[in-house]
């Protein structure tokens, strides 16, 4: 390699490495703000903002979905498999909302520690399989 080309190559490597380091530090310091939602444990530990809208993510606890009255109001519990938070929502739920499914709700905590959601989004997981495979998986789990 000719010296001038070597120089340019080193310059480019240094530039990319420098920008990479700078962006790395920037992202590290903004880490908290880049989280799209708080977990239920964060909320119970008081990390979530009080009196302000924030997003809460977690799995819908099996058997916790209740519809008091015949309106659109739904009560359910969210969990991150260590702590649970009760959620109340009035509105139409997305297709993928079901028990055991991950969701992200936008809203705020009321005085009783119940999360009043204004919007509920379903968080799809990364698993894709035919219904028959799911059924046989379920059978295996139940058999154990």
């Amino acid at each position, binding site marked *: *390699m000719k010296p001038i*080309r*070597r120089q*340019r*190559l080193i310059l*480019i490597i240094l*530039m*990319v490495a420098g*920008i*990479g380091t700078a*962006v790395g530090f920037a*992202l590290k310091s903004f*880490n908290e703000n*880049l*989280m*799209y*939602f708080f*977990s239920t444990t964060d909320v119970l530990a008081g990390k979530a903002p009080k009196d302000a809208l924030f997003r809460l*993510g977690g799995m819908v606890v099996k058997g916790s979905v209740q519809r008091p009255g015949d309106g659109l109001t739904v009560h359910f519990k969210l969990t991150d498999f260590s702590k649970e938070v009760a959620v109340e929502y009035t509105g139409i*739920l*997305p*297709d*993928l*909302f079901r028990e055991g499914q991950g969701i*992200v709700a936008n809203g705020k905590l009321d005085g009783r520690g119940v999360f009043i959601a204004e*919007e*509920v*989004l*379903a*968080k*799809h*997981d*990364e*698993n*894709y*399989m*035919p*219904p*028959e*495979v*799911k*059924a046989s998986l379920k059978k295996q789990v139940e058999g154990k």
Partner: protein
Amino acid sequence: MFLIPDPVGRFFHRMASPPHFYALTEKLMPWLVAIFLILLACGLYGGLYLAPPDYQQGDSYRIIYIHVPSAWMSLFIYVMMALAGAIGLIWRIKLAEIVAISSASVGASFTFIALVTGSLWGKPMWGTWWVWDARLTSELVLLFLYLGVIGLYNAIDDKRTASKAVAILALVGVVNIPIIHYSVEWWSTLHQGPTVTKMDKPSIHVSMLVPLLLMAVAFKFYYLIAMLQRTRLELLQRERTANWVKKMVLEQKL
């Protein structure tokens, strides 16, 4: 002798000779198109007809056969563009500069397709067209990077200067590529985690995975075809006063 051995450099210089490249790609093109069409037909038939519906999403998951390969291509093409740009900067190879700028619009299109198909799927599945989570935002930044590259190239009249400026912009933007890929692991996002591109076994049933991979390879061939056609055109334009172009015109090969 340092970093890149001389014989490799010489090989690239010979490959990058415009008349040689123009003749070679002309011969390759029908083959590339044939392979692309076969792969696309197999992938679409497998994905839309043979693959079973998903246990949760039913048939609407089938959008992954467009969305996922497009998103992969948006990252792959960006890396190709930045690499070609770097080669152009270091060795001043005209062809590498042209490959870089010819990749930009193809990459921008794939990024756009990934964003639109994701949005169309997001409305029924998530319950929203768009959220500002780390994955979606960083992919949108990628689209703006592509558009910036295209805009910058067209803003500078001298195409050799334009190519240098574009290569530097592309190299600066490379930092966004790992951010897009790892965003779903580093931060909590509404977008799901990786299904195929992870160390673990893919969490997708094999009957659904095979058409997805076929589509991914088909899209790679599409990129090659579109990029090479654009490169040939740009090459002719830049070399319009060169002898090999004049000769070809006189022999009525054009």
